[in-house]
């Protein structure tokens, strides 16, 4: 692993993060003085009403948006003052993104979508094909490698997107409502996959969500309101049991594949 981290290591540290859009009468404060620490091996849920600043925070943590003020450290490196042209490298090396709308390239097959992420990292040809295949097997899509996104279900698309996000073997996974567009079976498959990536591979997974069905999977739940981090929860055991997705064949597949995990 290029960026190997141990369990419970602080991989993201933010202090006083604020984001202001516009100026003067059109000024909009999207984020105010957010302090947080994200550790490896945990699935952290970011929750809050629309406009509370969840996606803005995720974008800043993912180095695709700059904070107006405050500090951000990724694996101990202060990225706040890095020049713009240094950020793509950080995104390639440290972060994997999973989007609500999947954002797959429709002209590429599942394997090629993953290989494209490898191509960005200079891995090409047979090495890329082999690694893409491994990643798709890891997310349970061994038989759909050569399918185009249009021929995949929503859950399968999201799993391809997760495989793509893993291409750079990043210590951080940022997911923006990855289950929102999925049915319960697919949603469960995806959240369980993300949980496994956190718990088994020591990744820090941060997930923006509105979906109450995923609350029980979170190791931590951070609540944002009006751009402020207002509270943190640790889900109770009974909540975990009552609100989870219903059992499904896919869930059973994962339970059998990774016994003891769920």
């Amino acid at each position, binding site marked *: 692993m290029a960026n190997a981290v141990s369990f419970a290591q602080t991989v993201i540290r933010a202090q006083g993060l604020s984001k202001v859009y516009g100026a003067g009468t059109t000024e909009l404060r999207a984020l105010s003085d957010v302090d947080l620490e994200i550790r490896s091996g945990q699935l952290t849920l970011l929750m809050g009403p629309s406009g509370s600043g969840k*996606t803005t925070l*995720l*974008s800043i943590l*993912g180095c*695709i*948006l700059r904070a107006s003020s405050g500090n951000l450290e990724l694996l101990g490196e202060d990225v706040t003052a890095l020049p713009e*042209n240094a950020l*793509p*490298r*950080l*995104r*390639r*090396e440290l*972060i994997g*993104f999973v*989007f*609500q*709308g999947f*954002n797959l*390239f*429709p*002209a*590429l097959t599942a394997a*090629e979508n993953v*290989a*494209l*992420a490898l*191509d*960005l*990292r200079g891995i090409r040809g047979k090495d890329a094909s082999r690694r893409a295949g491994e990643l798709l097997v890891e997310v349970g899509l061994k038989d759909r490698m050569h399918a185009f996104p249009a021929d995949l279900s929503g859950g399968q698309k999201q799993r391809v997107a997760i495989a*793509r996000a893993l291409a*750079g073997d990043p210590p951080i996974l940022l997911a*923006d409502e990855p289950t929102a567009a999925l049915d319960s079976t697919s949603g469960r498959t995806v959240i369980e996959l993300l949980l496994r990536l956190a718990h088994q591979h020591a990744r820090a997974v941060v997930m923006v969500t509105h979906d109450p069905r995923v609350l029980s999977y979170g190791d931590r739940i951070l609540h944002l309101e009006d751009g402020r981090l207002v509270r943190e929860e640790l889900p109770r055991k009974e909540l975990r049991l009552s609100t989870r997705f219903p059992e499904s064949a896919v869930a059973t597949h994962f339970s059998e594949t990774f016994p003891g995990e769920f």
Partner: protein
Amino acid sequence: MALLARRNLFHDRIRFAVTLTGIVFALVLIIVQFGLFLGFTTTTSNNIDHSHADLWIVFHGVGYFDTGRMFSERKFYEVLATPGVQHAEKYIQNFANWKKPDGGMENIQVIGFHPGSGLGEPWNLVQGDVMDVKQEDGVVVDELYKEKLGVSKLGDRVEIGDHRARIVGFTRGIRSFTTSPFVYTSFKNSLDYTRPEAREDQLAYILVKTEPGVSPEKVKSNLIARVADVDVYTRDEFSRRTQFYWMFTTGAGLAVLTAALMGLIVGIAVVAQTIYAATMDHIREYGTLKAMGATNGYLYRVLIEQAVWSAVLGYALAMVIAHFLVQASEKGGALILMPASMAVGMLFLAVAMCITAAMVSINKVTRLDPAMVFRG
């Protein structure tokens, strides 16, 4: 990267067809417009370029090929006596009326030359014998003008300026840059057709072949020093001056050139719009690539590769269409020329246009806020 560039182009076949159509349309438009310009330009100096003369001598002040001002045959002998002149011939061009067999009239340009001299003769003869113009009524015309002149075969009889004329040969591809076709005949016949009152010792041009090994420039100097009241031009000089006159002084060529430039501008606009639209169709994907850590350089390469693919494929199709248009034009009144240099130049132009258009899109893509990918 290469795969993404190609797949983005070819995946949506309708989109790709639209893109290619735009590029092909633009390139064909440019080829046709510039081909017409080149065709018209070349046509104005055709008789000079095919004259095989090293030097053209005209009355002083006559700077281009048109109805030449007459001067005395005495100049002709002064030319022959000038050092470095191997051979010289009289040549004339003048307008006349052509009376068709059905009685209709056409305006023509009679070219008078000395048959067998090798200077100023018609070229691309496809029927008949050029030496037959020595006969009292023999004329050669181009097959393009058969219908216009009301003739269809060798031996057809007409009248030129109240004198009998008979078709003794047909050429192929000798166009006139005016509405009056060229009619080739002997120098003697031409005087009968155009200036029956003139004496034979009058001429409009003297065509000179210089001695082997002697520079035409040197002979030109000798002629200027020896023969008064004439201008002497090398073939290329006279050709360029004639082209310039007809293209830019008369305004006719300016219209063709303006159309060619408009074709270029419209072509660039069409290509720019086409490539821009094709890029914007994938803008969200480029945003995703940026979010995934793609550098601007990576995006440049993807877009430029797409542009080059579009240009090369569009060029190939445009060349096929242009080839047919050029061939068709050879049988029509307006010649479209596409020399090899223009064909090669079009490839570079196509690639340059597509890359330039892509640069506009690139500017948009590299300024993309990668956070857009999080927005529904």
